[in-house]
């Protein structure tokens, strides 16, 4: 017997309608969920791929790059002579750059920022620089793009379409590691050059792909600048390292671990925490008695905030606290007020912390592209907001365009292979910073993270010294002092 007044029928028109509504909502929800989930290994296998399987490989790799790039300084100039290629019978009237980019969806906001940065750089190339210098002519750039809606399926579709239908000459990547991870095998399949300005995961470049070139700093080098900064103020520091147990932060932590080992530094606590952590108290209970000098955290948004809150509650003090992502945003200060003082966050770039032609000449590296003022002005024109402040995503996107243009010019060719070869040897400085990749994997090894520190209510660039705007505060005020109103004053 049915237990209520309703008859036992399940599929009444009402329930069917409900199920349909729910399916629709379910798909929408699934789409958002998929956009934020971590990258999965590509289903296609490649004959020439060096499958990245074990942690050991990753460690080895990181050791190699760090060893090469950070301890032994790279050769100041790499001689690159333009190859004497005969010009193709017909030169295209424009160079077409393709891009699938998240303008909507979970990555929409940052994706759009990057997109605007790219448009600003193209504008600079076409209008200020005069176009790409090729065979004695100047050829303008044209951008073809699709909104991939932060969806892994769409980014794959559009990447394929850009190559096969739109027949673009070069590709710029999408934004966020999962999306770049998804599109990379497509570019590789067609031997299409893909400039990666938006996926920081080292894994993208450890799949054996040859055509993917990274512009910004990979995850494994996110925190190495923090260690350099720490060493500049404290000899032989005791370091506590905790990190979120996700792919990205495992790589961040791996970088810290290896770099510390190379420098003979002491990591006194090195533990991962689960991605959905709701309580750091157990970690803090273990950390408190260690009385370490520095805390380095591989974090994201929520966990970074939670950790700050609980460190403050427990009053566990460090002279130096560097945390990924969370402290880089103004929300952090909104949430913590004075407690945010002194916290350090690594960033790829900030307005006011740009490289300049002077720095380039001091370092003896070739300069290319607009200065920061030029870039910011172009960016503001593009977004039609005279006060807009481009975030690092925009700068990274712009750098991708500039580096590509320089490489085309050096190669004097539109052949992706030829340009890729030049990209492997080129050493360049743009306003975004240095460019140089590991020639095999395409991973960025020269671009330095800058460190920003909350000082008197503002995020101030304190590292590296060539672009620093203020001195690094060390040791930072204790939690008790901060609660009493003390700020981090250099």
């Amino acid at each position, binding site marked *: *017997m*049915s237990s*209520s*007044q*309703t*008859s*036992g029928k399940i599929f009444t028109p009402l329930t069917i309608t409900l199920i349909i509504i729910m399916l629709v909502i379910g798909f929408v929800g699934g789409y958002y969920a998929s956009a934020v989930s971590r990258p999965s290994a590509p289903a296609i296998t490649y004959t020439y791929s060096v499958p990245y399987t074990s942690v050991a490989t990753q460690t080895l790799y990181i050791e190699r790059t760090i060893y090469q790039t950070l301890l032994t300084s790279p050769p100041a100039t790499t001689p690159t002579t333009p190859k004497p290629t005969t010009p193709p019978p017909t030169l295209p009237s424009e160079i077409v750059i393709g891009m699938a980019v998240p303008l909507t969806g979970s990555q929409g906001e940052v994706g759009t920022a990057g997109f605007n940065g790219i448009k600003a750089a193209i504008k600079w190339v076409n209008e200020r620089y005069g176009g790409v210098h090729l065979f004695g002519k100047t050829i303008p750039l044209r951008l073809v793009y699709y909104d991939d809606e932060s969806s892994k399926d769409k980014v794959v579709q559009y990447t394929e379409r850009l190559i096969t239908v739109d027949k673009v000459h070069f590709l710029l990547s999408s934004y966020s590691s999962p999306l770049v991870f998804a599109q990379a095998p497509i570019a590789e399949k067609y031997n299409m050059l893909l400039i990666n300005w938006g996926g920081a995961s080292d894994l993208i470049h450890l799949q054996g792909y040859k055509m993917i070139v990274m512009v910004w700093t990979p995850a494994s080098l996110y925190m190495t600048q923090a260690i350099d900064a720490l060493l500049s103020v404290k000899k032989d520091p005791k370091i506590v390292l905790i990190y979120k147990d996700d792919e990205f932060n495992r790589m961040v932590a791996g970088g810290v671990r290896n770099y510390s080992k190379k420098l003979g530094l002491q990591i006194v606590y090195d533990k991962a925490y689960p991605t959905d952590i709701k309580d750091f108290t157990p970690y803090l209970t273990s950390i408190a008695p260690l009385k370490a000098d520095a805390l380095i955290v591989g974090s994201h948004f929520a966990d970074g905030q939670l950790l700050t809150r609980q460190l403050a509650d427990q009053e566990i003090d460090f002279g130096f606290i560097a945390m990924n992502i969370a402290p880089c945003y103004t929300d952090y200060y909104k949430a913590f007020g004075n407690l945010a003082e002194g916290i350090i966050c690594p960033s790829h770039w900030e307005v006011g912390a740009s490289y300049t032609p002077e720095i380039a000449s001091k370092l003896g590296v070739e300069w290319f592209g607009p200065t920061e003022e030029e870039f910011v002005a172009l960016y503001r024109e593009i977004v039609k907001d005279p006060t807009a402040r481009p975030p690092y995503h925009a700068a990274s996107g712009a750098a991708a365009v500039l580096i590509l243009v320089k490489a085309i010019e050096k190669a004097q060719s539109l052949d992706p292979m030829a340009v890729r070869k030049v990209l492997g040897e080129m050493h360049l400085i743009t306003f975004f910073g240095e460019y140089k990749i590991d020639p095999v994997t395409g991973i960025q090894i020269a671009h330095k993270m800058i460190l920003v520190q909350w000082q008197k209510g503002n995020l101030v660039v304190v590292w590296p010294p060539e672009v620093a705007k203020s001195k690094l505060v060390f040791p930072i005020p204790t939690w008790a002092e901060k609660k009493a109103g003390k700020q981090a004053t250099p």
Partner: protein
Amino acid sequence: MLSIKKLESGYGSMQVLWGVDVEVGERRIVSILGPNGAGKTTLLNTVMGFIKPWSGRILYQNIDITKTPPHKKVELGINIVPEGRRLFPQMSVRENLLLGAYNKRSREKIEDTLELIYNLFPILKERKDQPAGTLSGGEQQMLAIARTLMTRPKIMLLDEPSQGIAPKVVDSIMNVLDRLRDEEKITILLVEQNIMAALEHSDHVYIMDQGRIIVEGDAKEIVSKIPDYLRAFIGL
């Protein structure tokens, strides 16, 4: 007191009742007999409102209650002792009874009713702190009747109170029904498989098969009216 007119209902798209007419006079015991699957339970549950009637009318004291929800019917004085008893197994006997007095009307008479019940079923008083789920089958049936009595019904529908109970206990339950009619002036509509007990205690009898009333009549004369093909089914 209760008249059921051309009642049709069923489950999903399967019709079970095909125009059932039943009249229950005041202070009488009326029985409905019939083979398994005849639709007796369906009839009682439709009258209570657990199953929505498809067509037909149900009148109680000349008010149309066809669409009244079950808890309102309880308030009006029509209630059921359902198939499967539907007790609250984790509550004590006493809690079951007290929950029976949920309505305002029954709450006012709660002490009187409890006294009546402990008088009718002394065993329930002994068991009053025991969880209902641990009672024996007969005790559970008594509790089910008692809980329904707590709501102070004027007409009680009983769905096979003798099911799965020893003959001696059946007797005592049947005697209780007589007492309820005579002393408490409660009208009773009884569905039974136990033909002998039902005939002995009823005033009027309906025979039901395949969702229809086949014959009706006085308890004494009905036996001769039952068609042969049904006799074996209902155990005559």
